[in-house]
Each structure stands twice: as structure tokens, then as C-alpha cells.
């Protein structure tokens, strides 16, 4: 096998990994949905670069000695071998979506934006479904307390309460481009007698425990949700939210 062929195999492996992440939907664990087709496209290009002649695996066998490209490629660095690392990590470890273990350093409360809060959407089956970002923003930043008395439905995973006081926080990550820039949105769940396992995904219905808005406080405490109906659900796809701006 010539050096070019070895590189072709590696490009093929990398491209196939990208295609697999795209096709199986696992790419959603790492990047926002808008980027997923681009990951697939990158996989196609990588596979093509690895396969197509004159340098790829599908080239005609060179008639003479040497590997055809001859003096074209100069001495190559070995650093390209590192491209094998993400391939092996994806195949061996299959990194999951970010979970409770990543929360501590990434917790965030959304800003108030321009202070305009659109009307709530209509309730479905007795509760208003909303993103964690909308719940947090209305709870913490809306001076007119649009959440007061409204029954809401939230989806997130359980994170043990800080200080080991029992109870848990409902958590959802919001990512902007990829999981490296994730921030955790959290609400304290009160009134659920059942202990919930760390990282268990839950659908929680309940009402917000009103508190005066902290419009300009950069790090207010997370809002509290008085739960009256909690049941476990499968991890939603995609697992993240993608904007701290809920309007529009």
C-alpha cells in the first residue's frame, strides 16, 4: 500500500464517520440541526477525495514502479494521523449528548433581550408547552409576570439539587453552534415526591412560583416550578434547545 493509499483509507474512514453521524442523526448530539446536512456533505466530499482517481483508492494501478504521484507530494507530516482520533472516539466511546455532569460550569440565565414579551401560546391538554428558555426568560426577566398562574409543560433532564438537599433541577442545554458552547438552563422542581435518577428525561407540568422580576441581575437564582404532574420520557431529538431568544 502506498502512502497515498493509506491516506485514502483514512479519508474514507473519516468521511464514513461523518456520513454515519449525519444519517443516524447522532450528529444532533454535537451540532445544531442546521449544520447536520453540512456534516453529511463534508462526508461525501471526504469519501470522494478518498476514492476518486488519480490519487484515491479507485485509481488504475500504476504501470511502473512508485505510486504515480511520485515527487508531487513532499515529505508529509505525521500529524494527519490524528484524524484517526475522532473516528476512534466516535466509534469506541459514542459520546452522548451533554448531561448533568457538564452542568456545573455552564449554568446560565437568559438576558431580557429588548424587554418585549409576546403573548403566550395556547394551552395543549391543559398546559402551555414551552421551551426552557422561554420559561426562564419570562420567570426571571418579565416585569409583568406573564407566567403567573399559568400551567406550563417543560421537558428536560434531572440534575441533583446543589448542596445535596434532595429534590432536583430540571435542566436543558441550549447550544448555539456546537456542544462546545453549551449553556445549561435550569428550573428548580418543587413538589415531586418521587426521587428521580440523575440524567432521567422528564416531562413536568406545573405552575411557576412567582417572584419579582430581576431584569438586570446578571446571575439571579433559577426559577422554581411547583410540579403537579411528572412523568419520565425518552430523550427528545434533538436533545438541545438552540436559542435563548424564544420569540419569533
Amino acid at each position, binding site marked *: 500500500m502506498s502512502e497515498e493509499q*493509506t491516506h485514502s483509507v483514512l479519508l474514507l474512514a473519516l468521511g464514513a464517520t461523518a456520513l454515519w453521524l449525519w444519517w443516524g442523526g447522532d450528529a444532533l448530539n454535537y451540532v445544531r440541526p442546521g449544520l447536520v446536512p453540512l456534516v453529511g456533505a463534508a462526508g461525501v466530499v471526504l469519501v470522494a*477525495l478518498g476514492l476518486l482517481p488519480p490519487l484515491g483508492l479507485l485509481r488504475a494501478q500504476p504501470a511502473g514502479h512508485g505510486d504515480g504521484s511520485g515527487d508531487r507530494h513532499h515529505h508529509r*507530516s505525521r500529524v*494527519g494521523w490524528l484524524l484517526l482520533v*475522532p*473516528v476512534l472516539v466516535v466509534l469506541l466511546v459514542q459520546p452522548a449528548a*451533554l448531561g448533568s455532569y457538564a452542568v456545573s460550569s455552564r449554568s446560565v440565565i437568559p438576558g431580557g433581550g429588548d424587554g418585549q414579551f409576546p403573548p403566550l401560546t395556547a394551552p395543549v391538554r391543559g398546559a402551555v408547552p414551552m421551551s426552557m428558555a422561554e420559561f426562564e426568560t419570562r420567570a426571571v426577566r418579565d416585569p409583568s409576570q406573564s407566567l403567573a398562574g399559568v400551567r406550563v409543560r417543560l421537558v428536560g433532564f434531572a440534575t441533583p439539587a446543589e448542596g445535596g438537599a434532595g429534590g432536583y433541577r430540571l435542566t436543558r442545554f441550549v447550544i448555539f453552534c456546537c456542544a*462546545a*458552547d453549551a449553556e445549561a438552563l435550569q428550573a428548580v422542581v418543587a413538589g415531586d415526591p418521587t426521587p428521580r435518577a440523575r440524567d432521567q428525561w422528564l416531562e413536568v407540568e406545573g405552575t411557576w412560583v412567582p417572584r419579582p422580576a430581576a431584569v438586570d441581575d446578571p446571575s439571579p437564582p433559577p426559577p422554581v416550578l411547583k410540579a403537579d404532574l411528572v412523568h419520565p420520557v425518552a430523550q427528545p431529538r434533538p436533545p438541545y434547545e438552540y436559542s435563548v*431568544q424564544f420569540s419569533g
Partner: protein
Amino acid sequence: MRSTVDPGGAVPQVVAGVSRRRRIDGRLVVLLVLIALSTRGMLAGSLDPVALRTWTTVFVAIVVQALPFLVLGVLVSGAITALVSPAVLERLLPRSPLLAVPGAALAGTALPGCECASVPIAGRLTARGVQPAAALAFMLSAPAVNPIVLVATAVAFPGQPRMVLARFLGSLATSIVVGLVWSRVGDQAWVVRTRERLAGGGGPRWLAFTSAARHDLWDAGGWLVVGAAAAATLQVLVPRSLLLAVASQPALAVLALGGLAVVLAICSEADAFVAASLREFSLTARLVFLVVGPAVDVKLIAMQARVFGRRFAVRFAPLTFVVAVVCALVAGRMLL
């Protein structure tokens, strides 16, 4: 004695030795991937240390997120090699750096790409005979001030259009100033290595294209992996609380966010949202974060060290950092 003058005996031996070593390399890849496939997910259960689990997700996320932009970048750099002859570039680009550098910086604003895409492109431009100062100005401006990034910034800072303008001016000024400074004090010898290594060219265009694209993918891709690993490690190890404690000191806050931009290595399409979430910090400090990030971070330093050489990187990174901080502070003073 006789064997050394006998070419018929010596040459095949060498060829056989080289190809045997390479055959092992190639089969190693196949073997590793096959093992990985057959034991899929087996390691996941044993990765209980929480930091390691976060690390793998963040690491893969950075690589996956950068991959499309890297591929786009190497396709463009392959096209430059195959289609743009040095003679054409010489005619198009003004000879004086005073004109070429701002021209290249403005040209960069038209290419929507990630910073990982622009490093190999700049390498190819230098190899094609573009003066390094202009290629570097292009490399700095392309990821920082393209339309996608500006729209993302406007979305992340609603009701604050001055933030978008300040980012545009700060980043454009950074790329022009760094380019001009480099044209004055930069030593050709620090980048000339690029020209030797990447020269290639000639022959059928398709071969030149694939050869250049594959070469750049190999190099830049490898260093992207190094940078992603470094960024993931620092994200896991440096607690956010430590950074926030710093936010209360204005001067320290500027340096801290500048340093954070270097360390986090977030792509320029995303950094505005991260900056928007750092509400503890002043707008000016967050502007520094936005101007520094696309110009210099751990991932870029690693890639530049490969494309332009280590001697280049150790001089270019500090220069860019200082210029970016100063330009952001000036833009912030004027606009925010």
C-alpha cells in the same frame, strides 16, 4: 564497494523497504477501524469519570462542527492551486502593501467561512506568490467579518446594532493593522518555508486540485484535532466561576475575555452567542472576546504553526492578540 556502484542492486532494495513500512501503516488504519467497529460503544460504560465524558462530547463536537468548514476550505485552496496561476495573482494584486493589505482584508469579508478554512487558503495564497502580509490580512478578516458572522452577532445582541458595527470595524482594523505591521517587521524567512513545501502545481488541473486538497486536509485536519483536544481540555479544567470572579475588574475583565477567546476556540459563527451569555462582563470586554476569537485561538495557533512554521506562529500569535485587543478597545470606546 561493488554494491554501492551497482544501481540495479540498491534501488529495488530501497523501494521494497519503503513500501513494506507503508503497507503496515495502511493496514493499521483498517485494523483499528475494524476493531473499533466490532467493539462499538464498549468503552462508553467504562468512561465514568465525569470530566472525561464531557471531554469526549466537547472534543467530537468541535471536530464535527469544524469539519464542513475545513472541507470547504481545502476545496477552495485546491481550486486556487489548480486554477489561479501566480502570474494572474501578480497582475491582480497591487504591489505596494499599503494597497494590497487593505484590499485583501476587504476581499476576506466576502467569503463566509470558519477560521479553520481560512488558514489553508492563506497558505496556498502565499505558495502562489501572494505577499504574506496580504495573505495574512485575508486570513484574519475572512472568518471575522463575513455576512454570516455579522448576522449572528445582530441576532445575539438584539437592539444593539452598534455591537455589530463595532465588531466589523474592530476585526477589519485588526486584519489591516496586523498585515501592515507584518509587511514592515515580518521576516520573509519565517514564512518562506510555505512556498517550498506547498509549491507543487503544474500537471493536469484535476490532479493538482485533488493533490492540494488532500495535502491540506491532512495537515490542517491533524492540527484541528490537536486544537480541539486542547480546547476541550481547557474547557473541562478551567472552572467558569474563576473567570466570573474576574469580571468585576474592568482591565482584568478585558484580558480575561481575550484569554478566554484564545482558550475556548469557538467558531466565529457561534462566539457572538457565547459573548451575549457572558452578561457579567461589560460590552467592551465582550467586544474584545469577539474580535480576538476569530483572529487567534489555540486551534488556529496549532494550524498556523503547521502551515507557516513554528517560528512564524510564535511571533504572529502575540502580535495578533495585542493588535486585536487594542482595536477592539478603540472600537468599543468610539461606539459602545
